[in-house]
């Protein structure tokens, strides 16, 4: 049961980190971690189907979109 | 009131199907044109023939109709999504579909036939009609989000830097307002466990005093209402959307935002009926919008920006009618929404025609237009009189009713406010009229192959409609008043 609280704390912390982080690649990786652990929390909150959809979106679609946008904007350079 | 009318969801479903269909046949201009015109005739036809009533999706009746369920301690609520269709919805739907039809006709007439463009117009039509019809607060939220995306797509189709910036700003604040609406719905769901608006209003009436969670839900939903209708903190963003879209598209956007204002205000009044503070807060934001919109509209030197600010301030006037809060004032506000939508549509279509004919909408570059297009100038003069509330036209009726309602509600200052707003609107638009059509200005080059027969027909039809409503206002006003009284807000 303690694991749930740890996950909640990880979600909050990673959200803050993703905003504070200067390097956009790192912040996108942290955002992916946040979204994935949010899916785990959904599972612990008895919403399994939502957890599946959130995991797919957070782990595959969202970072893909962000990485494509980041590549198209900064061409890999940091701002 | 409980006949399960099957035609009601067609107003939402058919535009979506047509949007998907038109979207698929991308390059075939002939078929796009044919399908669009046929489907527009159908869209105008459906709301006229639909009977008043409610539609229960997938036939889920109320739980009260199954006595054995009462053993499970389920209260008597709706179990599915419900659409309700009354007289106000009928009038708004007819006006919305007609102006959408005019917009699509102008778009097709301009030889810029793109399937995706027409599809976006259809999706925005579908979501606006769903917002007006929905009796389910989450369904309403979903279609507001779809409406935001469709409007942004319509604006950024101009492929201009300013339009991209306006669309991005609109989406940034759209996420804030969408999240606030969703949070408000979530808090209401957590407190009362209901999503249907009728059941929710009954539950809140039975609950008596609102607890702090419901009060924060009220504030979040109010922020969403301010965004969707382009009131005070969002008036600049809405105005940017209007001015950067093509003018015939902004003629559609202002219809949608004013009707969403009316629909969402009705939803808020139904859910939180008898919560007086909400009405005074609405009134405050509406007065702010009226003041800023009219004062900014007088400063503009560019036709589309001027018309955008006028549209924003008129939306504020509609919201003033809701803020006063008596049923007479609310009916006057809805009536003014309909009248003002027609007049603003005329002005935006004229702006589109001017943009095509003279290739600019900057006022000091224009001039001597009356020799080129006398009919359009005359209609613009009539539309100026119509939107500033001069007697034979329709806005006079609604603004007179608004002043009367303000005096009856014990706030005659608002009557003075309405008169000042109409004066400001008249000054702002008559300045534009003078500088376009009468000022002996520089010789502008005239695009001769633009004859604009379609535009002239559309604006003449619209101004005749304004005149007809102004001469016989009770045909429109009495059903609205009965509907508002039946709401009991």
């Amino acid at each position, binding site marked *: 049961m303690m694991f749930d609280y740890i996950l909640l704390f990880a979600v909050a912390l990673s959200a803050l980190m993703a905003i504070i982080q200067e390097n956009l690649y790192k912040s996108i990786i942290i955002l992916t971690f946040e979204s994935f652990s949010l899916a785990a929390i959904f599972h612990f909150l008895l919403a399994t189907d939502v957890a599946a959809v959130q995991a797919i979106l957070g782990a595959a679609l969202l970072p893909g979109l962000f990485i494509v946008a980041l590549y198209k904007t900064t061409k890999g350079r940091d701002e | 009131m409980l006949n399960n009318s099957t035609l009601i969801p067609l107003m939402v479903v058919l535009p979506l199907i047509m949007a998907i269909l038109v979207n698929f046949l991308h390059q075939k201009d002939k078929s796009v044109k044919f399908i669009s015109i046929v489907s527009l005739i159908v869209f105008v036809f459906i709301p006229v023939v639909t009977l008043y009533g409610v539609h229960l999706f997938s036939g889920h009746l109320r739980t009260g109709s199954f006595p054995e369920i009462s053993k499970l301690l389920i209260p008597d609520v709706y179990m599915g999504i419900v659409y309700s269709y009354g007289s106000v919805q009928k009038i708004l739907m007819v006006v919305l579909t007609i102006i959408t039809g005019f917009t699509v006709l102008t778009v097709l007439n301009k030889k810029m036939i793109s399937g995706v463009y027409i599809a976006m117009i259809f999706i925005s039509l579908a979501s606006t009609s769903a917002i007006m019809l929905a009796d389910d607060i989450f369904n309403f939220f979903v279609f507001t989000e779809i409406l935001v995306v469709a409007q942004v797509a319509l604006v950024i189709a101009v492929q201009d830097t300013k339009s991209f910036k306006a669309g991005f*700003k609109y989406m940034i604040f759209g996420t804030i307002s969408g999240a606030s609406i969703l949070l408000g719905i979530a808090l209401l769901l957590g407190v009362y466990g209901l999503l249907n608006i009728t059941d929710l209003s009954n539950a809140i009436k039975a609950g008596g005093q609102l607890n702090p969670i419901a009060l924060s839900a009220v504030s979040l939903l109010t922020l969403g209402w301010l965004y969707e209708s382009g009131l005070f903190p969002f008036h600049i963003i809405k105005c940017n959307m209007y001015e950067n879209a093509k003018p015939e598209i902004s003629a559609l956007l202002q219809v949608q935002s004013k009707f969403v204002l009316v629909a969402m205000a009705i939803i808020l009044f139904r859910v939180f009926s008898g919560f007086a503070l909400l009405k005074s807060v609405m009134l405050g934001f509406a007065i702010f919008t009226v003041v800023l919109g009219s004062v900014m509209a007088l400063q503009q030197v560019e036709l589309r920006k001027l018309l955008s600010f006028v549209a924003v301030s008129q939306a504020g006037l509609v919201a003033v009618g809701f803020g006063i809060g008596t049923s007479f004032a609310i009916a006057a506000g809805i009536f003014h929404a309909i009248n003002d939508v027609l007049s603003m549509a005329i002005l935006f279509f004229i702006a589109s025609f001017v943009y095509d004919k003279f290739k600019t909408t900057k006022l000091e570059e224009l001039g001597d237009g009356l020799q080129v297009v006398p009919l359009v100038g005359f209609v613009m003069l009539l539309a100026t009189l119509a939107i500033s509330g001069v007697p034979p036209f329709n806005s006079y009726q609604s603004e007179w009713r608004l002043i009367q309602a303000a005096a009856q509600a014990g706030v005659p200052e608002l009557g003075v406010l309405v008169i000042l707003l109409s004066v400001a609107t008249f000054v702002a638009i008559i300045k534009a009229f003078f500088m376009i059509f009468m000022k002996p200005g520089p010789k502008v080059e005239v695009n001769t192959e633009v004859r604009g027969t379609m535009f002239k027909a559309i604006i003449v039809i619209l101004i005749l409609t304004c005149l007809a409503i102004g001469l016989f206002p009770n045909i429109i006003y009495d059903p609205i008043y009965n509907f508002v009284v039946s709401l009991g807000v």
Partner: protein
Amino acid sequence: MLEKVYEIFHEKMKDKGQGMGIGSALTSEFLMLSFLLIGAILVLRTANSTILGFGALIILGGILFTVPTVFKVEKENTDSINLSSFYVALTLALLFVIFLGGI
């Protein structure tokens, strides 16, 4: 007296359009002042809380001391996204204060 006002506006609006521009600016200035007067009367007459009344009086006095207000209004209503964000945050806070605190 009006000539003096016209002169003030003239030298304030050198960059923008003259003539009709100044006329519309004057109109909007008078409209702004009358709107403010109506709003103050409305708040003072209908508000049943002394905070709102004093606030309206203070705002009215502060604005009446800073005429012409039109240019300030125009400066506050630019297309800047930061200004809009500030006003949105202010509005959210104001709504919560009004509905939960209950002025």
